[in-house]
């Protein structure tokens, strides 16, 4: 290289190198390996709605509807009584059982964390294998 390349020439040389960057040759064909691996994957269960699903959803929606209907049609005195009792209950909790709400929150968090243990164990086994 006897003289410096112009900026345009440099661009051209770089583009040439980029376009001729060779695609690596595969050491072996992986098709058979992939097929072997996908054969061990259980086929996804097709979506199927059974009569018991329909009946269960009907019962749940009827229950929700009944609760909502009852709440809407309760006498005002009963509604006021329920509200008063619930406020008293909440205050009772705040005064006499301050530990209850944090304990419930931590228990829920602990339970959710525990749910991940089987998955983590599975991953660890996979990695060590």
């Amino acid at each position, binding site marked *: 290289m006897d003289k*410096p390349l112009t900026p345009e020439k440099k661009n051209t040389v*770089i583009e040439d190198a980029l376009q001729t960057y060779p695609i690596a040759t595969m050491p072996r064909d*992986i098709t058979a390996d992939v097929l072997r691996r996908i054969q061990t*994957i259980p086929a996804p269960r097709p979506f199927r709605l059974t009569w018991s699903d329909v009946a269960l959803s009907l019962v749940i929606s009827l229950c929700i509807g009944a609760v909502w209907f009852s709440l809407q049609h309760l006498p005002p005195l009963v509604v006021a009584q329920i509200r008063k009792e619930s406020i008293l209950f909440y205050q009772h909790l705040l005064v006499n059982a301050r530990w209850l709400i944090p304990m419930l929150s931590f228990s829920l968090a602990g339970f959710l964390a525990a749910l991940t243990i089987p998955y983590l164990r599975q991953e660890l086994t996979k990695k060590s294998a």
Partner: protein
Amino acid sequence: MPDAEHLLIQRARKGDQEAFAALVTEHQRYVYNLALRVLKNEEEALDLAQEAFVRAWTALPNFRGQSQFRTWLYRIATNLCYNRLPGLRRSLNDLGDDVISELPETDLAFDNPARGFESSELRSYLHQAMDELDENYRLLISLRYQNELSYEEIAGALNLPLGTVKTGLFRAKEQLRRALESYQELSWTNP
């Protein structure tokens, strides 16, 4: 998407393993190459390519054909690269999108044999320089020049803004330009 490939995808989505095998055979080289350029390890790249196809098989029912099959496949492979190189995603995001201009893409024709020799030597030197670039630049270069994706397709596959893709490629070329200048200096001091 070519019709034949579209048919293969349709069959594979219905659980036809032979059709999927044909897709693997067709695309494996490019997925492997992408993994190899990023990971720089043959065994790891082979393993990643297999994993990418296994994931593609399980996710195939969700492939609706909004993007090209190969772009979708490279997205899966890139996500697997992110898992193996935790810094890769961050380094791509950190590129920003402050690109000012792009290097023009031009065709080369070395008609002079002497210059042809010089260019092949220079080419090898630059290919070596590409191998020594950071992993984020190697990924972008591989997707653009070897897997032949457009800037928009790369942005889609990597889930990055278009400007970041252009900036990344621009900076990769800047590094190659510096490598080229050091090659020139070397050739002047050792003629």
